[in-house]
């Protein structure tokens, strides 16, 4: 008895763990399934607004006013009856489906229908039982129309100038400064680095007003310069990000170049920069996004129409043409296309970059 017990006990236990494992595996599949379902539901919530944006941008004004939730823009077909355009319906009379025009609505939720070929014979039918005849009707011409309704070409050029000139200034100055902070020792360099990091916490409002006054006095307000020139003086985020990356480049490479007689500047240009492509691309992408979307500073510094960037132009467009929702959405779609493309072509850089920049904030 005892011997059998000691023999069977582990086997039974083994069976039990086997069954238990199966249970766990089943539970895992359950959690995976539930997770996927939750994520899918969330993704629909997240993407629907964007789909809706595109949908509205392809409707005409009457379709916008119909405000249907359908994402594919539809239109009621109309037929000429006695010289007037009336909406066409599929109607059911005596179990037979026919196409008829709705001439007018009648009390009690009914409508007066007639065959367009024979408009004198009318039928009074319950309106909600009949289905309107509709076709897909999209309006891509909204896009060129939106682009010409306001000088978006001009705004586009301005935005590009601000974005890329600022990006050049940022890359130039931040590389130099990050190199200085990553490779040189001096009594003040560490203190200056802490000072640099502390400016991340500084609300920009405490310097904005005097800067405005300064730019006003030197005649830069209402030019693109206040949005570009400050980029040539480095900023804490990008310096920190680049410095962290430069620190990972082995000092032996610097030393080897030094032995070959390279100056510090040559080391930066021929050793550090070529090895830091990923970091430089990351800060460049983030700068693009920032400059492309920025509304606050362009609103403050740019006053006349010809100098606006797309963000300010779009906001003003909305204020002026608020009845042309479809055109506003077309312009909005155009504005979000570059960030979306950039995002899909460089998502890994994006996601890593977010993490690293947030580390900078620490």
């Amino acid at each position: 008895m005892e011997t059998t017990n000691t023999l069977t006990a582990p086997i039974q236990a083994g069976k039990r763990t086997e069954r238990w494992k199966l249970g766990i595996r089943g539970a895992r599949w359950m959690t995976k399934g539930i997770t996927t379902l939750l994520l899918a539901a969330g993704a629909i919530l997240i993407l629907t607004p964007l789909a809706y944006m595109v949908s509205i941008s392809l409707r005409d004004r009457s379709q916008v006013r119909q405000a249907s939730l359908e994402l594919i823009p539809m239109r009621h077909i109309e037929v000429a009856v006695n010289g007037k355009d009336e909406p066409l319906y599929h109607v059911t009379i005596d179990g037979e489906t026919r196409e008829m025009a709705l001439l007018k609505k009648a009390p009690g939720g009914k409508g007066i229908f007639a065959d367009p070929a024979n408009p004198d014979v009318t039928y009074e039918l319950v309106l909600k039982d009949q289905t309107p005849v509709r076709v897909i009707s999209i309006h891509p011409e909204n896009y060129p129309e939106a682009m010409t309704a306001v000088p978006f070409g001009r705004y586009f050029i301005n935005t590009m100038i601000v974005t890329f000139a600022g990006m050049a200034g940022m890359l130039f100055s931040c590389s130099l400064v990050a190199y200085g902070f990553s490779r040189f020792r001096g009594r003040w360099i560490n203190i200056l680095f802490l000072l640099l990091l502390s400016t991340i916490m500084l609300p920009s409002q405490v310097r904005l007003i005097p800067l405005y006054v300064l730019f006003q006095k030197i005649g830069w307000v209402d030019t693109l310069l206040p949005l570009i020139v400050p980029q040539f003086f480095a900023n804490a985020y990008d310096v920190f990000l680049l410095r962290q990356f430069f620190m990972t480049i082995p000092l032996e490479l610097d030393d080897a170049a030094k032995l070959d007689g390279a100056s510090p500047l040559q080391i930066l240009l021929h050793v550090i920069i070529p090895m830091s492509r990923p970091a430089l691309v990351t800060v460049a992408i983030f700068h693009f996004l920032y400059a492309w979307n920025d509304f606050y500073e362009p609103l403050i510094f740019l006053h006349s129409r010809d100098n606006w960037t797309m963000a300010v132009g779009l906001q003003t467009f909305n204020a002026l043409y608020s009845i042309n929702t479809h055109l506003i959405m077309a312009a909005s779609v155009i504005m979000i296309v570059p960030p979306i493309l950039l995002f899909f072509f460089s998502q890994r850089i994006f996601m890593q970059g977010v993490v690293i920049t947030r580390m900078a904030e620490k």
Partner: protein
Amino acid sequence: MLNIRSWSLSRREAAAGYLFISPWIIGFILLTLGPMLASLYFSFNQYNIVDMPRWIGLGNYTRLFNDPLFWQSLKVTLYFAVLALPSGLILSFLLAILLNQNIPGVRLWRTLYFLPSVLTGVAVTLLWVLLFNPQMGAVNQVLELIGIKGPGWLNDPDWSIPALVIMALWGVGQNMIIYLAGLQSVPAELYDAAKVDGAGRVMQFRHVTLPMMTPVLFYNLVLGLIGTFSYFTQAYVASGAVGEVGGPLRSTLFYNLYLYQNAFDYREMGYASAMAWVLFAIVLLLTLVVFRSSSLWVYYEGELRGKG
């Protein structure tokens, strides 16, 4: 001899270092420190750019504390923060946990959820203005399908802030990515140790994941709070699109919006500078308070080592 040479070398090296960081030093003096001091000076003056500043001592500050709109702007900002920050934190943290699991297509999901956070600014705000339209907007139409009569959203002073909060929640993907990185940096040994001690998944979450994540959660909370005081574009564009900037009934008069109006609409540069310095003090205070209180509930790895 050798000593002097190495001394001069290190000195030469330091000089090169200062030369490389000089763009930032110059920028710091001209674009940060100088303007900060000037703005402090302006805050004690009446100043409209055209005329010379006129010294009024603490006048701007006493006026500020008696200005109902200043208090309104503080209230609006804090109300938004109270609604948006905790919900954003919970939502993005939950998403990060879901996306940290080994499920098929996880990278696609991460990409999708991250997407809205690169789409900020005017275009997306105008889209939400349309979605929130009380009559034509998709939000209220969907609510109607399930039998709820939707509110006036941006047109209703009671619902304008919740509308902006929903808009902000759409972009939680950015924080999600940060939490995801945090979750992935939790050492696997800790989970193994917990398993050996017989901890189930809930216990692992409670005693490993959560304590390891609190620093990240905490920093995001502080940064979110500071960020709320700079909140501008969405409020300006959304309220402007449905009526008056900061409206309806000043229900979206965020701190930074009121500061902007004082400076650039009313040309009250001194008054706006005083607002900027009060903001600076608030941010400083918040940062200090939260950092001080953090030792109560934030868990740092160093403490573990110390106790262990």
